[in-house]
């Protein structure tokens, strides 16, 4: 296996980790105002992801950094080509990040409601946009002979990519709802369970069509992993209905792994195909760094990834308990004094 292939695989693994982990916290954020009937409810929801969302987001930063280091041409063409779409992602992630910290800082319903909606937007927008982005990456975009993107923002809004966006949004929402059945108690848990059935159906429909479309275009292994993803989504709905929340969550996580691998499998050996002329496509070989850089990066990854996985897993163990309305302390926000 060539080093470039190893790095393609590692970047696929990083995106998979990102989607599995941040997928559920995007889902929880998206459903904040649907499942949270009052402020205590909403605080329960936010606190299910409170200790972990930031660590989950780092998977994206490492995926981005690894792409820069291992495939600089991919990073350059992708990030400059998808400019305005990434601007939207950035705005969403910036707002979302401060929203979790700021929301409870002032004791005012208006303040908290504003940040609630910021969390909803900041979670739903990237959940949708990452699907749009990957739809475009897998299908290809117009690249010229220098591998420069020659389209516009609207080139990215094609039906296949938009379908990908709806698929990831529904998939992450489903994943989030199932996560909540695992992490909450009482009425919230019940509501999350009921909603998870509907979201499971939506994820199966949109995810299924998106994957079928992908498999028709790329064939081969994509059919197998797509079928696996579909089967896991159906299993997740059944487990959730049966109140086997752990199995349901493992199934949605497995489905996201299968979906991400379908996408990367379909992409390989390209990293950004050109729809203008396949000779202009960026591939694992023509976009890569030198073997020396890839070697160093491989050693660093081999040495440190297990450590990271170990302490992240430990965090989930520390915060394994379900969160109920009773575990939410009285609001700590400062009073807002009207002058």
């Amino acid at each position: 296996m060539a080093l470039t292939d190893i790095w393609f695989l590692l970047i696929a693994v990083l995106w998979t980790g990102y989607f599995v982990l941040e997928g559920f916290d995007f889902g929880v954020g998206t459903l904040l105002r649907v499942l949270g009937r009052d402020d205590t409810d909403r605080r329960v929801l936010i606190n299910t992801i409170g200790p972990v969302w930031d660590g989950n987001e780092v998977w994206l930063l490492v995926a981005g950094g690894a792409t820069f280091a291992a495939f600089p041409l991919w990073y350059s063409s992708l990030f400059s080509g998808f400019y305005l779409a990434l601007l939207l992602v950035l705005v969403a992630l910036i707002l979302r990040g401060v929203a979790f910290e700021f929301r409870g800082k002032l004791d005012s319903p208006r303040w908290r409601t504003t940040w609630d909606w910021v969390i909803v937007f900041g979670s739903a927008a990237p959940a949708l946009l990452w699907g749009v982005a990957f739809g475009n990456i897998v299908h290809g975009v117009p690249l010229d002979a220098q591998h420069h993107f020659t389209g516009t923002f609207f080139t990215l809004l094609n039906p296949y990519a938009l379908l990908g966006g709806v698929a990831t949004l529904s998939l992450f929402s489903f994943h989030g709802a199932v996560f909540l059945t695992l992490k909450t108690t009482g009425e919230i848990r019940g509501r999350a369970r009921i909603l998870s059935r509907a979201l499971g159906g939506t994820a199966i429909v949109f995810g299924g069509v998106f994957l079928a479309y992908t498999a028709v275009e790329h064939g081969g292994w994509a059919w197998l992993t797509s079928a696996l993803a579909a089967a896991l989504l159906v299993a997740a709905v059944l487990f959730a209905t049966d109140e086997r929340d752990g199995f349901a969550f493992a199934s949605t996580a497995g489905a996201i792994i299968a979906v991400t691998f379908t996408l990367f499998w379909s992409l390989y050996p390209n990293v950004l195909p050109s729809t203008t002329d396949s000779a202009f496509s960026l591939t694992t070989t023509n976009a890569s760094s030198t073997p020396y850089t890839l070697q160093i990066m491989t050693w660093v990854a081999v040495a440190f990834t297990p450590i990271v996985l170990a302490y992240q897993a430990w965090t989930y163990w520390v915060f394994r308990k379900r969160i109920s309305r009773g575990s939410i302390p009285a609001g700590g926000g400062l009073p807002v004094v009207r002058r």
Partner: protein
Amino acid sequence: MSALDLARWQFGITTVYHFIFVPLTIGLSFLVAGMQTAWVRTGNGKYRRMTKFWGKLFLINFAMGVATGIVQEFQFGMNWSDYSTFVGDIFGAPLAIEGLLAFFLESTFLGLWIFGWDKLPKKLHLATIWIASIGTVLSAYFILAANSWMQHPVGSIVNPATGRAELKDFGAVLTNSTAVGAFAHTITACFLTAGMFVVGISAWQLRRQKNADVFRPSMKLALVTVLIAGLGVIVTGDLQARLMTEQQPMKMAAAEALYDTVAPASFSLFTIGSLDGSQEKFSIRVPGVLSFMATGTFDGRVEGINNLQAQEQQAYGPGEYRPDVPVTYWTFRLMIGFGFLCLLISLVGLWLFRRGRTPRGRWFFPVATAGLALPFLANSVGWIFTEMGRQPWSVFGVLKTADSVSPTVPASSVLTSLIVFTLLYGVLAVVDGVLMVRYAKAGPPPPEEPAAESDEPRPAAFAY
């Protein structure tokens, strides 16, 4: 404005803004860790209240640093794609390693610290804030190694076949003398920043004679921090100035608006008139000091801008190799000036607070509170100097900024993102400012009451 100018403005605005929060995060994480250590070791409740109070301000600031940091990694590819293609083989690795080694550590262990007060044993909980602090320093090292390679590109060659820079010796990139100097200078400045932050807020509280049991020890700790860090900033700054003279002589000459090569060179404290080399109306100069800063001796020869411009033209072809002299001249001076003022405040403060005393005259408190702005200003102008002084290069002697910009991103897109970021950051600055001031004024939590024994499940010690 061209896409290039807009992209430069955007990089400047987003990076300076991000770096308002970063030094405070780094410095304050260690101070809070120290306070919590004092609590764990002594069991004295005042240290717990100190930890809680400064910890809350630390977290508000940390959230802003994290949120604005994501842009930093993305915008190389978005606005500077030719740069990214050219340097990716070298520059990408420290960024990726920063994420893997540092960001995971910071985010995961701060999550454990914030929510772990009643879920982890006391000492393990204390370890989480120390580990997160170490993460912030690791992060600083890798990003400064990346930046230092732009200032002084070592361990690499340009492959004429691909037209891209290639890594030859990663050890050389990590042990770059520029990186070591920049790291030492930046980290000492981080402690200076956190120290002045604690001095300023403690002064506000002490002036109103509130919570002296918390803010007196905070003040003492911070004054000592500023003193030690301030001396460190001077020593490391001196080291950096010498490296700069050797590696980027044009930057040193521009910092002084020194047009003609001289030996010995005097240091201009202040000047009135134009800085274009044609005339100098008025200037206060200290003889020999520039020679000392640049070379380590009071009569060393310092190259002038005109001479260096001719040399660089010979080496790199015709073109403009002079950075913006007024900007470099003033930012260099202001950085040093703001830094020395911090040191002065700490010396005065240590004298006034010596041996259990509390200043009777009230003038020190508002001065110290106003001084809170100084390190932030010094950090900002320091980086503006470092980056503007390297122009027209993005990688010194190798790649020009004009050749770094994304060739296919239209100016309208860059303008859109520039406006969006500026507005968003403006709004967040107001929100962050309001929260910081309110929480600083609110003071520490009351002394803890012993929890009543009961079988009822108790709410978590902390929740969002």
